[in-house]
């Protein structure tokens, strides 16, 4: 079959190279995700029905979600628990932002500030935020304060670390370029170092938020009367596995929404970056 001799003068974009053996499995790939979901649901249903391990069937989970959404758990409606968790994370996150990023950037930009604060920071950095729970409770009882403090530690450390590396390893070439254009030291800070460090600072914000989200769950499981973490622990105590699993799905969904929000914010704050691969 003679192909039509197409007279193209525009520069053709040669197809991205795909190793030849990968290509031939293209046909049934689209079907697989559907298959795997169906498979997963099927397996879940079978295990639940046969009581191999105490696992609620998907139907029970949906029922549980409905019950919790309309009724109350430990005296509070579902959205209240979710609201409390998010509120704790938000407060801690904002404080961490206000303290962590300036400290990290200043330490990265000025050696003297680094020499002063870094040693102390290095003592506390390796301590996992959840290890602060006992001391926090000892200091602040079991109200809101200790939970917000734990989440603050979780958000604070990655923000400082990433802002520091972002500033310290900002591309020297860009600094030189700005100097040849007549930039003063402070102009270099605001016009070059800070924007160049932005992606790394933002990575710190992302890590901080996901770590903070983990910490609020831990804090709520150890000493709380409300919150998403308390929800799933409560499910454990009343031995209602449907409540645990639905609680986990809610937490997973919230985590997912936070991640989507952050990816969107990344586009807003650093619109000039290429799409990452994965």
């Amino acid at each position, binding site marked *: 079959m003679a192909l039509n001799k197409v007279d193209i003068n525009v520069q053709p974009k040669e197809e991205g190279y795909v*190793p030849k053996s990968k290509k031939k499995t293209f046909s049934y790939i689209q079907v697989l995700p559907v298959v795997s979901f169906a498979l997963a649901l099927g397996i879940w249903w079978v295990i639940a029905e046969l009581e191999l391990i105490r696992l609620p069937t998907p139907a029970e989970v949906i029922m549980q979600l409905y019950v919790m959404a309309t009724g109350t758990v430990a005296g509070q409606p579902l959205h209240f628990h979710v609201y409390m968790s998010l509120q704790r994370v938000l407060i801690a996150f904002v404080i961490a932002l206000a303290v962590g990023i300036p400290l990290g950037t200043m330490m990265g930009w000025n050696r003297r500030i680094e020499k002063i604060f870094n040693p102390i920071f290095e003592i506390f950095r390796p301590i*996992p935020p959840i*290890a602060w729970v006992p001391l926090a409770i*000892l200091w602040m009882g079991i109200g809101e304060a200790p939970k917000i403090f734990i989440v603050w530690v979780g958000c604070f450390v990655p923000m400082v670390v990433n802002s520091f590396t972002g500033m310290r390893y900002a591309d020297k070439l860009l600094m030189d370029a700005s100097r040849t254009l007549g930039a003063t030291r402070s102009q270099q800070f605001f016009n070059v170092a800070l924007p160049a460090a932005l992606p790394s600072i933002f990575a710190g914000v992302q890590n901080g938020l996901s770590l903070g989200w983990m910490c609020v769950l831990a804090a709520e499981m*150890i000493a709380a009367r409300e919150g998403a973490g308390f929800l799933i622990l409560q*499910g454990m105590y009343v031995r209602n*596995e449907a409540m645990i699993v639905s609680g*986990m799905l809610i*937490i997973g969904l919230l*985590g997912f929404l936070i991640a989507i929000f952050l990816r969107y914010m990344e586009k807003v704050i650093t619109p000039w970056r290429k799409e990452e691969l994965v």
Partner: protein
Amino acid sequence: MNNVKLKNNFFTENYLSILSLSFFFLFWYYLVASGIVSDRILADPITTIQTFIFKLTNTSPEGATLFQHLRTSLILALTGFSLGAVIGVPLGLLMGWYKPVDALVRPLFDVLRPIPPIAWIPISIFWFGIGMFSKSFIIFVSAFVPCVINSYTGIRLTNPTLIRVAEVYGASYRETFFRVGVPSAVPMIFTGLKLALSTAWMTLVAAELLAANEGLGYMIQMGRRLARPDIIIVGMLTIGAVGALIASGLQSFDSKLSKWRS
């Protein structure tokens, strides 16, 4: 910008750090000694050191020496961590290399991925009680996810030219996986391992705070119950130091293995 002074001794370079550290410890000591902060909620540095030495060999008050706590925690963390790595890394590599595996596993993985490892504690205790197995399972989950993600990214970033080099010499797609794909993913695999380790170490503490009768997490929990801030601080600093030690071990192993990177 001019050339570095030939001989810069340690003191002139770091006098600021030494000053700030000593100020920090003095301030900490002053807070407790002067009674501004009661010694029932904060222990001064001297007491902390004394307790540290005491705990090295004594089991009181919570029933195990520091070493026994550390041993329990390490065994738990490292079993969960190595299981997570041994299963997570190969899976991530296979997902990144073979489209069918990616299409099959990816949806499941993407559903479970946003659930933080700590959220697995209740269901794990519900299923397996509060024994060793339950906590190892939780730590396995916490280490498994970062290993899969970073190995997957690592192999996806393989330089396509190197794949063609192997294929031109007649290497099958499978052989290219071992000769080119896996070695080029090694640096990212290590990034995943380091992340997995820190997550595992943190999840361990959470699990031990909730349900344990030995381990560093249990020790600091008991410190709170017995109003012994010195035991809490000793426990916290040990957790931090050991975590940092293992991380630096992994780092040196990593820099040896991927020194080929520019």
